[in-house]
């Protein structure tokens, strides 16, 4: 009695090819699908040339011209200068990638879960949960060790000294952790404590734009400055 203009559900099952012709069997659907897959392959190959070749090459070309240092990994040299190629002999690392520093004469980075520590071929974190007994034990061990190494009260050790970063390559530590290490480094290097303190204060980078992220100290840059100063 009442008529609704909507199509019957059965039309859903039927396919129409793009030219508008209607086909009514599963076989025709298979044919249409095969044709669409070939069309898809052609489009995909075109997109691969555009997006997989032309686009990265173009971005690389512009990036290498406009921001050559950054595009090549923010490489630094032993004298504190910048390098543009990994092939340069005096490259000591990337300002963005943390390195292992073990002895008392160095400012130490955060604990790292990347391989044996700061291995860029194995970036990653511990993935241990907030209630993990293993991690809890590790944190307590680190607290004791850092407190002992730097001769401070265990409670004074900041969180970043006790926890591994997500990348395992965190190039930075908190200003608190840097300050905490200054005295030890000064003693080990036989430098005036005030000078090292001043170095640390000078190395503190505030929040980006005063708002973003956290204040931090780049360990490689700090240690490089230390080396320069010690010479």
């Amino acid at each position, binding site marked *: *009695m*009442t*008529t609704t*203009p909507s199509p019957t559900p059965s039309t859903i099952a039927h396919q129409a090819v793009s030219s508008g012709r209607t086909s009514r069997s599963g076989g025709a659907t298979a044919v249409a699908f095969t044709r669409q897959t070939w069309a898809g392959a052609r489009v995909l190959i075109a997109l691969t040339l555009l997006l997989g070749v032309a686009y990265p090459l173009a971005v690389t070309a512009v990036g290498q011209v406009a921001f050559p240092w950054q595009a090549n990994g923010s490489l630094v040299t032993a004298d504190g200068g910048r390098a543009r190629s990994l092939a340069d002999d005096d490259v000591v690392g990337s300002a963005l990638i943390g390195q292992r520093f073990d002895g008392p004469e160095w400012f130490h980075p955060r604990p790292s879960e990347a391989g044996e520590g700061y291995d860029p071929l194995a970036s990653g974190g511990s993935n241990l949960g907030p209630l993990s007994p293993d991690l809890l034990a590790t944190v307590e061990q680190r607290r004791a060790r850092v407190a002992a190494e730097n001769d401070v009260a265990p409670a004074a050790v900041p969180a970043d000294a006790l926890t591994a970063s997500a990348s395992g390559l965190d190039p930075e530590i908190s200003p608190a952790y840097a300050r905490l290490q200054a005295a030890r480094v000064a003693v080990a290097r036989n430098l005036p404590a005030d000078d090292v303190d001043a170095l640390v204060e000078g190395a503190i980078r505030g929040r980006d734009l005063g708002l973003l992220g956290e204040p931090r100290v780049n360990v490689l840059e700090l240690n490089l400055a230390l080396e320069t100063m010690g010479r």
Partner: protein
Amino acid sequence: MSSTLMDPADPAEPVGPMSSDASPSPRAEVRRRATGRQGLGPRQLAVALPAALRKLDPRELRRSPVMFVVEVGAAACTVLTVVSPGVFAVSITAWLWATVVFATLAESVAESRGKAQAASLRASQAQTTARKVTAPQDILEYTGGLAALPTTEVPSASLHVGDVVVVAAGETIPGDGDVIEGIASVDESAITGESAPVIRESGGDRSAVTGGTTVLSDRVVVRITAPAGHTFVDRMIALVEGSERRKTPNEVALNVLLTSLTIIFLLAVATLQPFAVYSGARQSLLVLVALLVCLIPTTIGALLSAIGIAGMDRLVQRNVLAMSGRAVEAAGDVDVLLLDKTGTITLGNRQAAELIPVEGVEPAILADAAQLSSMADETPEGRSILVLVKERHGLRARESGELVGAELVAFTARTRMSGLNLPAGGQGPRSGGPDGGSQDGVRRIRKGAAAAVTSWVHSTGGHAGPDTARIVDAISASGGTPLVVAEQLGSAPARVLGVVHLKDVVKQGLRERFAELRAMGIRTVMVTGDNAVTARAIALEAGVDDVLAEATPEDKLALIRREQAGGRLVAMAGDGTNDAPALAQADVGVAMNTGTTAAKEAGNMVDLDSNPTKLIEIVQIGKQLLITRGALTTFSIANDVAKYFAILPAMFVLVFPQLEVLNVMGLSSPRSAILSAVVFNALIIIALIPLSLRGVRYRPAAAAVMLRRNLLLYGAGGLIAPFVGIKAIDLLVSLLPGIS
């Protein structure tokens, strides 16, 4: 024949909300008593219980996936309980079964309301004999003198479509059919509950008769149009009993959603066991079933079909038969109401409101002429002139015997005038025309459309005069209909005496009704054969949104198609055969019971009271049906939140003591918490049966207002109620030994 007998709208009846309640037909009253509007008593539950238990048959219950899952769960728990009985296991199992029974009970209570009506309808169906005309087919095709042909008595059940029967006074009409010869008064109270007899006659729009009704006077010949077993009464019985009930589109759609929710919860609970095992908290099947039953939307699942049946029942209580549930739902969606002006918006027909004499004519003279000219006018307009003349001008009605030799001039389409010719010396005061007496002395009085009468006056050499045109224009401009009265004495030129102002009288209370509809987003369109000016004036007075003037049946159909093409749903009422295409095209077509078979076949509802204004109530009932479903669905789902707070801590507090924080209700023990949730889940079904039968309270309002109110009531209410209910049940349940 008297048309007041069949006037669809009783002028004395105010058209307010629930007008059928205001003046209930006796039958409707009977129905109400039989079905118990007062609510849900223990007696009703007891009566419905056997049917409810029969509905536990899984084959039948499968139609409601939600309840089917509950039944399977209850069966599984029964097995477990038999294997390892205990107070907790027995209680859970018992309440799971109670949940299923409450659901089937709701449905059978709803159905029992229709049973009483079906029984009284069946009484009218008692085997009767029919006097079947036995004659060759070609003679039967001829529609005259059939009553005189020989007949044989056959059982009414053996009648076929096309058979011709003769029914005389005192006999029951053996089946549905059309009167093809004769005229009779028929008592249709068995169907409509209306005790006043109606006239049925061959030809025209009053020819349909219904099997089971009784001829009171005279004799008619009826051609059967419906085979035995498929008559109107049969359909009515099926409808009110719900035996032919099929799920309506929206009900099916809702069921799909509920089924998918059930599957999601089934997955959530089924996969919970491996997770619980991993966590060292393996759960018993009993508890998992309890959780599942509490989560799946049992409340709406249990009440869904009862809501549908009750919705149809509410229509039946208002003497409307919906031929499909789809139509009831569509009524809720209606965007446009097509309302016939006559009988729906205005009181029947136009009525004489005033007599306006032209300059120089005494009112009494005009009144006399108007009365005389209307003697031959059997139309309601004509009779209203007589009434006006009597009431306003004190002229008593004349008997036809008083007018010896008067020659009545009937209205014809060609002349578009009616009137009479009085021989010389006839009764009544002569108007003192300028030429006094006339040669032949015949007094001719004519009344009719202005153009027709004016041209008649001109043809006799007379003049209508500027006064006439002024009065006629003024009446037309006001939306009224002018009827010009003129007389001719002898062979003198005729002259205009004055004008009768016919006016449509708009029913009281309609303005408010239309305003409500507008608030609900429904546009009202008045359909009338009047000219545009007249139509617009009445439309303005009645407060409808739009008019279709000078409408032909084709125009009506075109209008419906146009609205539908714009995506709108259209409802209309109609009774004539030429309404049938429009009724069929409309999404909701309400045929008047007094109408033709064609109209009744075309529409998807029949109003036994033949009151077109009822469209508005039908729309409201449709909306109420949908709202009730939505409200209980929302309520049902909102309930789950509290059940999680009851059951989840209870399940896992042993392995994760910290989850006790979630036991915000402070339920006394894990077992009592789970049992309380199950008990609440079952009892809420019983508690909501009355609401699902009655429908949620409905007040016309804008959608946003309604949504806010219902969300608050059923959404927020559904969130809070179980916290209170489960806590209360827990206080009782914890007294059971073996639970706390």
